[in-house]
């Protein structure tokens, strides 16, 4: 690939989700499909979010306690765990869970529809596949990702607090004091803004590679891999950009 081609690819990728949002059709139908997708993506991701959160809560509490015990007051446990989880771990990991669970599925589903000419069939019927297939999916991921981020925050911190109470004799109130002092609302909303951005670009990756499939089943497999790799890299790069901007 030469430079111009790479530039063209990147431009296409960046423009893609916006073209999806601009695609038009009957709005009422989009809303019906949006609810289907919300349900599907939300329900299929929740178990994995729970498992990830529980173990994240345990590990991060153990590691933090190990670093600070004997040096800093106990409420630092809540403070450090809380900030790490809110700013970094919950948005990044919930983004990765969505990528593994739903973004991959989207690329596979749309890609299969493409090779079986279902997208062509839509076009012939004057239904824009971007409006019909991509729009509700993109909107659904953008809505679901921050919600899952919130679930992850709650579960992780709760598990952390309980573990600290049981094994480190750190009272729940001390842990929560650390969480909220000094209270910094910015940290809270940065967490949600971040996961919304992740949701948008991860969803875009899945849909973009799905729509791009040409050929047969092997290409569908490749599209899934490309979607996951792109979404994962994007999460890390965007995470860095947000850190640059907000901190």
């Amino acid at each position, binding site marked *: 690939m030469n430079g111009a081609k790479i530039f063209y690819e990147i431009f296409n990728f960046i423009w893609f989700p916006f073209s999806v949002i601009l695609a038009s059709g009957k709005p009422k139908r989009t809303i019906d499909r949006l609810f289907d997708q919300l349900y599907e993506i939300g329900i299929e991701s929740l178990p994995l979010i729970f498992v990830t959160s529980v173990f994240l809560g345990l590990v991060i509490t153990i590691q933090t306690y190990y670093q600070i015990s004997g040096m800093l007051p106990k409420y630092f446990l809540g403070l450090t765990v809380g900030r790490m989880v809110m700013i970094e771990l919950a948005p990044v990991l919930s983004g990765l869970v969505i990528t593994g669970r739903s973004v991959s599925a989207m690329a596979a589903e749309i890609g299969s529809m493409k090779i*079986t000419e279902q997208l062509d*069939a839509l*076009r*012939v019927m004057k239904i824009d596949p971007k409006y019909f297939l991509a729009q509700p999916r993109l909107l659904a991921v953008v809505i679901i990702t921050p919600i899952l981020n919130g679930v992850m925050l709650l579960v992780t911190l709760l598990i952390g607090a309980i573990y600290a109470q049981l094994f480190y004799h750190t009272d729940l109130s001390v842990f929560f004091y650390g969480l909220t002092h000094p209270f910094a609302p910015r940290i809270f909303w940065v967490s949600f803004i971040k996961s919304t951005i992740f949701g948008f670009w991860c969803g875009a990756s899945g849909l973009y590679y799905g729509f791009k499939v040409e050929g047969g089943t092997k290409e569908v497999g490749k599209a899934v891999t490309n979607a996951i790799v792109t979404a994962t890299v994007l999460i890390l790069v965007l995470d860095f950009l947000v850190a640059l901007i907000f901190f």
Partner: protein
Amino acid sequence: MIKLINVTKIFGNRVVLDNISFTLEDKLIAILGATGSGKTVLLKIISGLLKPDTGMVILSDRTSLGCVFQHAALFDSLTVEENIVLPLLETTDYSQQTIRTKLEQILDKLNLSFELLKRKCHNLSGGERKLVAIARAIITEPCYMLYDEPTSGLDSDTTLHITHVIKKLKIPGVLVTHDLKVIELLEISERYLLNMGQLKKID
């Protein structure tokens, strides 16, 4: 009216369609061609899914097309009913009642049973898939139909049923097939042969 003027389509260094011109008025014509001769490509160019490399396709005002794809291209995640009414739901403002009436008329025309409606498309038989694809294509009452191998891979009874249906619909358009027998069954008089990128009339 559908008019193709000097249409050429090249994939890599393979000339699939070589300077093809023809005009379609109000009848069903048949295009016969061996596998790989470019029948599907030609239909996709007519329907606008593929752009010709040179030449152009002209459709007269308000011309609407219905397409029956070679592999039916049904939406596998939807039921038969959802598939058939989809174009009406998405592109018109018809009431539920009107849509229901149209659906019933079409089932009647194609001799399809109501029992089929609730089934998911991924476990239909080959013949059922083709019939559902035809139903979905004609529900919007298109001016022209494009049939891509509507009977390929079907047994002789089903072939007979489908050709009977197509004949009864009397919608003008283009039917492509590799099987001369189908054209005989359909009693189509205007026939072309697609070979080496050229379209020749058969007398």
